[in-house]
């Protein structure tokens, strides 16, 4: 017993190092498995607050581009509205399946392997996990962690990101992943060989998950090649969104999500 205590005392630096290093290692491994990292994320009031105050200075430098973006957005919406012949009573937000919440991005990263954004909207603004995040140009990611005032978004530029997507011209679906190489190119895999693919075709979200509504633009086909197995295509997609420059985002909530989830969970598991 004496010897054990002596051993601990003699090597206390090494043992402390081992302990702390294995904690760090454990947190790393945890963060590499989806939806596991519990404590270590930037959606807390301290880091969120720091990013928010830095961002409130930084956003002045982007006012011009943000304004242009809004103008473009408004233009598109207006032209849609003028050509739409409906009376006002139909557009009642209570009856719409999807509703949209706006939020400011306070932190954005795109150079690491697993990128996250932090946005200034949390559970107070009725944000929950697994909501889709988009801009007017295309998709950004999925809400991953929330706190009172801030949320973390799992960017599509993340090795763990998987989004259901389809070709605009047909209903052939695939999953959108990122090979961690370039911040403006993502990969669409598992697309059936029956699909008729041309370079320059548009890719958009498929309606198969309850996270994104159908038909949100993602990007255009850069090039494509056969999968190693030869049964499917691997497609490189150039994003519409400039992921390195995102000021404001929209969060899409699906009213029927609980219903869809409940229905899917009721299916018998074999």
């Amino acid at each position: 017993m004496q010897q054990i205590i002596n051993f601990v005392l003699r090597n206390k630096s090494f043992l402390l190092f081992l302990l702390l290093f294995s904690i760090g290692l454990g947190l790393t491994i945890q963060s590499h498995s989806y939806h596991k990292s519990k404590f270590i994320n930037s959606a807390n009031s301290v880091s969120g607050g720091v990013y928010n105050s830095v961002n409130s200075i930084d956003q002045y430098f982007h006012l011009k581009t943000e304004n242009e973006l809004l103008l473009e957005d408004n233009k598109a919406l207006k032209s849609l509205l003028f050509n739409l012949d409906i009376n006002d009573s139909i557009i009642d937000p209570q009856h719409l399946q999807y509703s949209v919440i706006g939020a400011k991005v306070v932190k954005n990263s795109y150079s690491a392997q697993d990128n996250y954004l932090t946005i200034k909207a949390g559970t107070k603004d009725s944000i929950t996990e697994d909501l889709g995040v988009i801009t007017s140009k295309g998709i950004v990611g999925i809400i991953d962690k929330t706190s009172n005032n801030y949320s973390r978004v799992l960017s599509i530029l993340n090795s763990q990101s998987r989004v259901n997507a389809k070709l605009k011209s047909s209903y052939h679906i695939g999953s959108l992943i990122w090979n961690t190489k370039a911040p403006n190119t993502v990969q669409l895999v598992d697309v059936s060989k029956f699909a008729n693919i041309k370079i320059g075709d548009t890719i958009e979200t498929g309606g198969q998950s309850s996270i994104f509504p159908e038909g949100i633009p993602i990007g255009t086909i850069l090039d494509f090649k056969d999968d190693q197995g030869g049964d499917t295509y691997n497609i490189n997609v150039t994003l519409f969104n400039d992921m390195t420059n995102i000021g404001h985002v929209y969060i899409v909530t699906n009213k029927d999500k609980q219903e869809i989830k409940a229905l899917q969970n009721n299916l018998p598991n074999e």
Partner: protein
Amino acid sequence: MNNTSTQILRFLGLLLLQVTICNNINFLGYINPYVYVLFVLVFPINVNRQLFLFLSFLLGLCVDIFSDSGGVHAAATVALAYFRPPVLKFSFGAMYDYQTIKFSNTEIGSRIGYFTLLVVLHHLILFSLEVFKFSEILLVLKKTLFSSLFTIFICLLFTVLFSKKTK
């Protein structure tokens, strides 16, 4: 007392500098300096070793929280702190044995050697954990090389700028 407050200020200052500015440089797409290692590099050597290890871990963990990277910075920084004494001995030799190192008095050559060894070690662990794949070892080495050069340069610049004049 004065020394303690200096260290606390340095801790917070380097942390904020890292997460608000240095993490967003992205030179040539992915090269960032990791200046916060300077806290570990110039930490006084006669302070309790366990406290030093713990502070390093805390600093790494704070950087991790801000940059959403799990525990990679914490693990790399604690390893850096643990392997500092042998590198100190290797770089400064006799001065370390008598515990009389003042970083502002050291020769620039041995200081560069000391920084290089430790920064490369830190970055190697950092990027291996971040990439977390054996098949991407070339990417790890590439990132380590370029980011290390950047970090060493910035750290040397800082030590030269902020060292007290002795003459």
